[in-house]
Structures are given as structure tokens and as C-alpha cells.
């Protein structure tokens, strides 16, 4: 009995000691890089870069960076994160971040910038890049303090409406140029007893994100680029009269009986990579599928279609509100630096520059710089998308969910629409729930 009491006393003693020493650490870890635009580090021999690129884009990225590194006598240590968000958070919290990181989510990047973990670009580099970047991209890498923390390595184009070109032609359909024409085409296909749309939003633990692309493209068109920016920053609510029409348009397409293959509820159960493949079946399971360019790669469309992508698919620009005024929605991995060592910044600045991306273009990735050589892209489909959709866009905007605070952009903006589409709640509840989850500015 005495022994037991002694044990308890000992444990409590240790506990109290722990409590006394474990006070909250004050958040003043950002001593070294407050303004950190100029390099102060000695220039380390080995620089590490961490990214969440898939197996298709990783080798080309490595090739581009290695070529540069060889010329500059720097060794680059490539670190692949299987689950970017989780791993980068863990590494940063553990005080062991990489030198350069490619953020697929600028929202998370700005979260870390706010905590003082990142080094912004200097004004001169930003100015040089701004000349050649598609308009709107620099703003995407700018965080709340007005500094540019990240610029993209490559971009993907999301505003693409895919069709099965031969089937589309055979049925006698014309490419819709406006959103009204798109609705009319939907009605026309349905009236012929066929299913117009394939919509797919299942993505394992990230189910719901493809819906954000839909909504963003529609907000860009219904509300315009300026309101889009305000919406992304949280200044315009999801449930505001400017933003809501986008949702209502999506509702018209996705919720009307007979519009979507498998019915509305199958949207969240159909995989985003292969969800459009029914388009290429005989007879076609659907005629329209909206998805970013990556879907025309292995793992997306059927292999037989990819082999003859230029003749089998017909990518169209997602229609505009008024004909000809096409904004473009893009995504991409943004390079940011975790310290201001000279070589760290050199590597980051190279990744963001127009010199980067030759190998990646050959592998099918778009450079964010308008000066890029389109003919490097491996097929005509991608060349058309680059020159017609990306470089001709009246305004480019970065994927809004990637720019929003992670709580919304990788949280409620994914999960609440899933509840809406699977019939658990109505549109108003959905929008209000997302608005409620938006962190108050300045907190």
C-alpha cells in the first residue's frame, strides 16, 4: 500500500514539473526572416526541395531542376511528399522544413507565411516575372501582408469542357459559346433521350474538390474577376447575391432530373479521374465532361483515347457569360522558400522563372509564362488549350479553393457541397455553413 501511494506521489510530482515547464511557447520563431528578401545565408552546397507532384510530372520536374543545378554547381535533394499538407505541416512544426517547397495549396502557404516561416520574393524578381506571367498569377501568390511568397512552377488549365469529338460531331451538336447556349445544349441532348453530363467528384479523402472547380469557373463568369478576388479573400460571402447565381447555375445543370449520368447522388460516388470515361463508350454514356487538362493523361481517359487524343477528344473552352470574354481558371504548384540562404533563393527563383519548364512542357505541363514555346507540348490538343484557353484568356485566376484559408479551401468548400449533392441539406444551409467556417479576417 505504501508503495502504491509512493508511485502516485511520484507520478504527480513529475506531472507538476511538466506543467510548470510546459507553458505555451510564445510565437516568436520568425526572428531570422522578418523582411528577408535579400539573401543573407552563406549559400549551402545542397538545397532540398519538397513537393507533392504525381508520378507523371515528377521526372520532368526533376530533369528541369537537375539541368539547372548542374550548370550552377548546386546539389538538389528532391523530397517527395505522399501527402503534402500533412507532411509539410509536420516538418514545419518539427522545425525541419525543406529549403524550397512546391505548394499545391497557396492557402496553406499563406498560413505558413503568416507564421513567419517563409521568405517573400524581392521586388525586382517579381517585376521581371510579372512581365511574362499570365495576368493574375502574381496576385495568387501574394499573401495578406501584400508580399509575394510564391510563384508557380507550372500550371494546369481547369476551364476545359471535354467532349468525344466524333460522337459530338455525329450527333450534330455545336460547341456552346455562352453559358446560356450550354444550358440549351443540355436540354437538347436530354430531349433526344440521351444523358448530357458526366459529373464526378469522388476523390477518396478529398472528395468534393472537383465541385469547387465548377463553382469557381462559374463565379469567375457570373460575378467577374474583381468580385472573384473579393470572394476568395472572404470579403464577399458565399451566400451573397454576387456569388449565389454560380451555385444556382450549377444546381440547374447537376440537380435537374436526367441531366447527369447515374443521377445527382452518383456525382459524389464517381471518381474524378475516370468519371468522364463513359463519354467514349458506345453508345456514349454522356456527352459533356468538365475537368482540368490532367484528365487527358494516363489514369484519366481510357488508354485507347489518350493514344489518339487529337482525334478522339474535343476540348472546348468552358463557355463565357458573354461570347468572347473568356476568363481562365488555373491551378499549379507554387514555389516558396523556407529560408533566405543564397542558394535556396536561387533555386526558388529559377523554378518560378520562364527559363524553367522545358522538360515539363515536353511532358505536357503548361508554363505560366506567356513566352513559353507552345510547340514543345506533346500533342495538338494541349497546344490548342495552351494557346487558345490559357494564353488568350482575358483574365487568369488561380484556383480559388487553393487560395482560401485551408479551413475552407481544403475543408468546408469540399465537404459542404458533398452534403448538398448527396441530399443531406439544401443550398442555403450549404452556403451559410461555408460562410460560418470562414476565419474572420485579422484573427
Amino acid at each position: 500500500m505504501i508503495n502504491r501511494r509512493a508511485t502516485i506521489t511520484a507520478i504527480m510530482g513529475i506531472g507538476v514539473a511538466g506543467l510548470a515547464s510546459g507553458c505555451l511557447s510564445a510565437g516568436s520563431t520568425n526572428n531570422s526572416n522578418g523582411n528577408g528578401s535579400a539573401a543573407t545565408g552563406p549559400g549551402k552546397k545542397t538545397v532540398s526541395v519538397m513537393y507533392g507532384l504525381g508520378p507523371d510530372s515528377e521526372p520532368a520536374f526533376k530533369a528541369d531542376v537537375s539541368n539547372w543545378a548542374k550548370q550552377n554547381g548546386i546539389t538538389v535533394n528532391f523530397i517527395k511528399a505522399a501527402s503534402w499538407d500533412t507532411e509539410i505541416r509536420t516538418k514545419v512544426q518539427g522545425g525541419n522544413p525543406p529549403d524550397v517547397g512546391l505548394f499545391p495549396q497557396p492557402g496553406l502557404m499563406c498560413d505558413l507565411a503568416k507564421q513567419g516561416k517563409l521568405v517573400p520574393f524581392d521586388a525586382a524578381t517579381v517585376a521581371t516575372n510579372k512581365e511574362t506571367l499570365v495576368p493574375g498569377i502574381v496576385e495568387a501568390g501574394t499573401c495578406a501582408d501584400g508580399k509575394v511568397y510564391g510563384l508557380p512552377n507550372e500550371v494546369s488549365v481547369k476551364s476545359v469542357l471535354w467532349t468525344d469529338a466524333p460522337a459530338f460531331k455525329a450527333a450534330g451538336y455545336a460547341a456552346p459559346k455562352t453559358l446560356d447556349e450550354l444550358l440549351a445544349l443540355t436540354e437538347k441532348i436530354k430531349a433526344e433521350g440521351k444523358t448530357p453530363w458526366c459529373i464526378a467528384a469522388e476523390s477518396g479523402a478529398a472528395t468534393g474538390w472537383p465541385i469547387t472547380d465548377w463553382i469557381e469557373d462559374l463565379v469567375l463568369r457570373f460575378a467577374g474577376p474583381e468580385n472573384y478576388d473579393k470572394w476568395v479573400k472572404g470579403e464577399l460571402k458565399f451566400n451573397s447575391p454576387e456569388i449565389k447565381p454560380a451555385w444556382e447555375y450549377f444546381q440547374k445543370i447537376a440537380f435537374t432530373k436526367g441531366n447527369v449520368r447515374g443521377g445527382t447522388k452518383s456525382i459524389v460516388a464517381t471518381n474524378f479521374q475516370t468519371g468522364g470515361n463513359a463519354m467514349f463508350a458506345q453508345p456514349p454514356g454522356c456527352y459533356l465532361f468538365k475537368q482540368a487538362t490532367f484528365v487527358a493523361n494516363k489514369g484519366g481517359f481510357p488508354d485507347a483515347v489518350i493514344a489518339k487524343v487529337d482525334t478522339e477528344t474535343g476540348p472546348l473552352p468552358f463557355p463565357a457569360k458573354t461570347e468572347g470574354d473568356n476568363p481562365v481558371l488555373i491551378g499549379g504548384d507554387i514555389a516558396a522558400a523556407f529560408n533566405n540562404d543564397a542558394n535556396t533563393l536561387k533555386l526558388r527563383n529559377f523554378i518560378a522563372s520562364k527559363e524553367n519548364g522545358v522538360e515539363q512542357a515536353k511532358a505536357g505541363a503548361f508554363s505560366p509564362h506567356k513566352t513559353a514555346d507552345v510547340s514543345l507540348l506533346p500533342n495538338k490538343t494541349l497546344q490548342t488549350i495552351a494557346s487558345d484557353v490559357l494564353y488568350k484568356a482575358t483574365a487568369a485566376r488561380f484556383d480559388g479553393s487553393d487560395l482560401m484559408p485551408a479551413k475552407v479551401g481544403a475543408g468546408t468548400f469540399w465537404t459542404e457541397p458533398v452534403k448538398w449533392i448527396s441530399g443531406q441539406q439544401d443550398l442555403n444551409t450549404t452556403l451559410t455553413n461555408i460562410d460560418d467556417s470562414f476565419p474572420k479576417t485579422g484573427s
Partner: protein
Amino acid sequence: MAIKLVNAVTAIVGGIGGAVIIFWILNKLAESLKGRWEDRVKPWMFAGPAILAIAVYLIYPAIVTIEYSFANEDSTAYVGVKNYTDLVTDKTFLSVITNNLLWIIIVPALTVVLGLGVAVLTDRLRPRGEKLTKTFIFLPMAISMVGAATIWRTIYDYQPEGAPQTGLLNAVLGFFNRAPVFWYGTSTLHLNSLMLMIILIWTQVGFSMVLLSSAVKSVPEDTVEAGRIDGAGERRIFFNIIVPQIWPTVITVFITVLIGVMKVFDVVYVTTNGAYNTDVIGRRFYDELYTQGNNGYAAAIVVILLIAIIPVLIYQVRHFRQEEAAR
């Protein structure tokens, strides 16, 4: 490769050897004390390192977690009980609690019942059949939760109507000309949660069966025999003679599974990620910490889970002590 092997061997030998040397030294130190002090100090020399390890790796983090649960999302300032009041008033969190309660009520009970059923029935088989049956039922135990969820996809999978169905259930529905159902998205009567529970039960029954089977076998034959002579039927013998004698094992299995279920995470994470009203505390905690980056909220959830688990632990320790005393 060779270097890795050498490293591994060095680590094992060094680790075990180091521990042996430390305890040997501590023992020598204790022996160097004279008289009664040797007896007083010696137990602590052996228990001390373990207590220290528990303090460093368990008690200290627990205390820090409790502390963080009263702090903001970056753990830089205290916010009082705000995290707790937010949680309690959050409608989605209440549904999380409801789901967890369902898991707690259903999974351990079914695991024990099924395990006991298998244990009793296989006991009647010939040795060879018993071994084979038990092996098959024990097999899922060796599969990771993620693997199990993937395997069960062949049962629950859904394809839009008109496409070939890749899930067994929907294929059966299709055979009877019924439209396919998106099972994971069907929360009527918590059907989807129940389907996830089945996956967990499938992996746990083997464990329950093995323990209960050995308990059933150790029931003295003469007690059963005596019951038969007194004219008891099979059912009577089972409920009034066998079950009371294996009850302590039943409780042990029940509580072990219960504690596992309270922490359930992976099944839900890989199948629905908490969507369609299937969320549980474990996944919500992960979501708050890693997706939302909200340390305070995540810590508060863990503290609630900790508080909920304590009564179970106390009961288990008491039960264990009674067992010891009875021997």
C-alpha cells in the same frame, strides 16, 4: 542493404545489451546499499526506468494536451473554455458523438457474440475442421484496416446505373433489376455507419474467437457433465454453466474491443472521410489538427475522448485486480 542489416543487428544487440547493462549497474548500486535500504531501493531500480518512460511519453504529453485544449489554434494564447463551448454547441460534433456511441454499443457486443458463437460451434468440430475454420476466421485479423476497407470495396462499390457494377451488393440488386445504391452515402438509419462497423467487426472477430475458444475449452468437463446428469438442455448448459465460467474472458474481450472502437479512425478515413454523416471522434480530431490546423480544437476533442475512456479503464483495472485476487 548490407549496411542496413548491420545497422539493424547493431541496434537490436546494442539496445537490448544496453538495457541489460543499465539494469545490471542499477542492481549493483542497490546491492551496494546495506541492510534494509537494499530491499527498499531495489524495486525502484527496476520499476524506475519504466515509470520514467511512461512519465515522459504518456503523462507529460497528456498534460500538455490538456493545457493546449485551453489555448488558441497556434497554441500561442489561452482562450479559456472556448474550445469546449464551441464543440458542445457545434451541431456536427453532436452527430459525431452519436456515431461514436453507436460504434461503442454495437461493435464490441457483436464482436463478442460472434466470437463466442464461433468458439462454441468450432469446439464441436473434429480437430482438423476446427483448426481450418479458426484459421480462416482469424485471417482478417492480420489485414490492416486500410487493406480491409479496400477488400470490402468489392462488396460495397457503386457505379452509376447502366455501367457494370463492381460491388457485390449492387450486382445482386442489378440481378433483380433494381437501381444501384451508393451505400456509403446512405445514412438512413445510419446504414452506412453500420456497413463500416461490419468491416471492423470482420477484422476483430478472430481475436475474440481465439480468446473465448481457449476459455470455452478450459471449462471443466465435469461441470458440464453434472449439468447433463441433472437434466439440463444444451441451451441451459450454455447459459447457466459455460457462460458464467468464461465471463471474465468475455469482459476482457469486450473492453479491449471497446477501447479500440473508441479510437476508431482508419476505417472511416479511407472510406468516407467522415462525409455522409459517418464521422467519428478519431477522424474529426485528425481533421481539426491536420486539415484545419486548429491545435486547440483538436486537443479539446482528445481531452473529451480521454475523459470518456477513463471510466472504462478504471473498470478494467478493477476487474483485473478482482481476477488476481480470485486466483
